[in-house]
């Protein structure tokens, strides 16, 4: 894992800054005061269950949906101020939407050439950029094939490549690796890391949490149309309890039974396991040891992003760093 990066709210001028976004579809509040800032060079993993507002947020920032209220600033441009400002802001954004959006009867090169032209790239400069991105995402061998003849993973790479063209200062990648094979995933993650290292701000929504660890991403947790927690992975995981498993030689002592889950240990004669969830596993273990019980083993597992995601189902996480 990389060193914890600063979040957009803490670092200098944010590339992306959204405040108070609200969007309602009939009786459904898709966004309900959504705030997020992303700094240059920062990869922000946007987490949340289905319906949390992630995709609506991406649609608003990419200009597809106009919010009922709120502001969107991209590199200082107020994207909602006017149609012209919106276009200027969108020229700074590379988007890989959740749904596959490529021209199936056109070749990879033809697809990328279109997206390069939308950035104002033409001629040799466009062709050089297309070749470079195709190399980066391992598409060089199929660049003249119709996209409709490519595998799902290759199509995903074409879609991602179209977002990476021109190295925009802001990347919005909405579940870019859904259904992707490991090769595609690794290629894409490497490309995202490279863009962030070069100073791009990246918003990355995913349900594959290890990807966020791999990217060293800061986290923004969305729920019910709001960002309810914002910070580095270490900050957000710090308040989640660790899992302490203590294996006893024999049954779990009666005075400890009520403190956690008790289970027998497979393959042993009478050994039992006590599982505790605690924010302070070292102290809890020290207390058990001090009572003189004979232990066969101890295992401590610190909270992971999976635990954070699971915690979202129940309560609002204890740490709230939302901007």
């Amino acid at each position, binding site marked *: 894992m990389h060193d914890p990066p600063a979040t957009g709210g803490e670092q200098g001028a944010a590339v992306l800054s959204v405040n108070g976004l609200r969007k309602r579809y009939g009786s459904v509040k898709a966004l309900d005061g959504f705030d997020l800032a992303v700094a240059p060079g920062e990869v922000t993993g946007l987490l949340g269950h289905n319906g949390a507002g992630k995709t609506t947020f991406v649609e608003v920032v990419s200009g597809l949906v106009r919010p009922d209220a709120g502001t969107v600033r991209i590199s200082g441009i107020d994207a909602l101020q006017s149609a012209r400002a919106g276009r200027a802001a969108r020229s700074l954004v590379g988007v890989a939407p959740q749904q596959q959006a*490529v*021209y199936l009867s056109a070749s990879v090169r033809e697809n990328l050439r279109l*997206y*390069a*032209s*939308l950035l*104002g790239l033409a001629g040799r400069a466009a062709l050089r950029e297309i070749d470079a991105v195709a190399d980066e995402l391992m598409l060089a061998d199929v660049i003249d094939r119709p996209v409709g003849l490519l595998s799902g993973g290759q199509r995903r790479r074409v879609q991602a490549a179209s977002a990476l063209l021109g190295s925009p200062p802001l990347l919005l990648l909405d579940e870019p690796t859904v259904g992707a094979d490991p090769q595609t995933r690794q290629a894409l993650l490497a490309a995202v890391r490279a863009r962030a290292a070069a100073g791009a701000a990246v918003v990355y929504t995913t349900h594959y949490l290890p990807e966020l660890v791999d990217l060293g991403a800061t986290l923004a947790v969305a729920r019910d149309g709001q960002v309810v927690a914002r910070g580095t992975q270490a900050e957000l995981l710090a308040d989640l309890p660790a899992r302490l498993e203590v294996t006893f030689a024999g049954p779990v002592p009666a005075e400890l039974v009520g403190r956690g889950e008790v289970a027998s240990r497979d393959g042993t004669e009478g050994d039992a396991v006590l599982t505790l969830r605690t924010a302070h596993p070292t102290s809890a273990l020290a207390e058990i040891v001090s009572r003189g019980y004979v232990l066969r083993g101890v295992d401590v597992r610190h909270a992971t992003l999976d635990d954070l995601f699971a915690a979202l189902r129940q309560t609002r996480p204890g740490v709230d760093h939302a901007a």
Partner: protein
Amino acid sequence: MLRDAAIRVGGMVRLNTVLLVREPGPLISRLVMPLVLMVMLRPLYAAALPGPATATAAVSTPGLTGTGQAVTGMAVMFSLLALSMVGSGILTERMWHTWDRLRGSATSAAEILVAKAVPALGFLAAQQVVVFGVGVVALGLDVRNAGLLALAVGMWVAMLLGVGMALGTLSRSHAEMAAAQDVGGLVLTGLGGALVPLAVLPHWVRSVAPVSPGYWGVRAMTSALAGDAGQVGRSVAVLGAVAVLAMGVAVWRIRRGWSRSKLL
């Protein structure tokens, strides 16, 4: 700024042309069918049309011959391809979700529509030149004023492109669009007098025919053949108004955007 816009439109035109050329069947059929039908139907139209002495301006262009009706009628009927080329092109992009990629870029709604229209316009111009060219060379069509004819054809095609854009942006599915095209085709060709000359249609059809843009398309072209600049002017003014209205609807619809609850 202007350079970037030109690059964007150029890129979209290039890709739209590629997409059209990759599926040439509709283009070929729409080029060949009017030629075949105008040869087949010309004697029928010649027999059906009243002679120059009895025709009135309210019913038919004075002096319109069977050849004139056959060529203009088929040119109008098969130029309806513009509706499906533009409309289906937009709808297909919406289904592929590439439409949102365009809208999510620095491209304006007008640029997107222009880029959709240009390849269709190119093909339609070629189609009209072939139809009228064959009419003149092989069937002896008499064109009194080629400039007026070009104006009439150009405005007709612009109107079709506008209506096609509006349909492509308003339709929620291919089935809905197919239904709209069926009804639109009937209104534009049947009611307009492209398929059957108005002179032989019932009186009530003749009375309501001017509500159809097809009526003004046929009238503009047949008047151009006769060299009647006044009638051409009135007809292209109506067509131009419909074109502007339809394109305005399309631009408005694109700017408004679509929610995810639609059929596509």
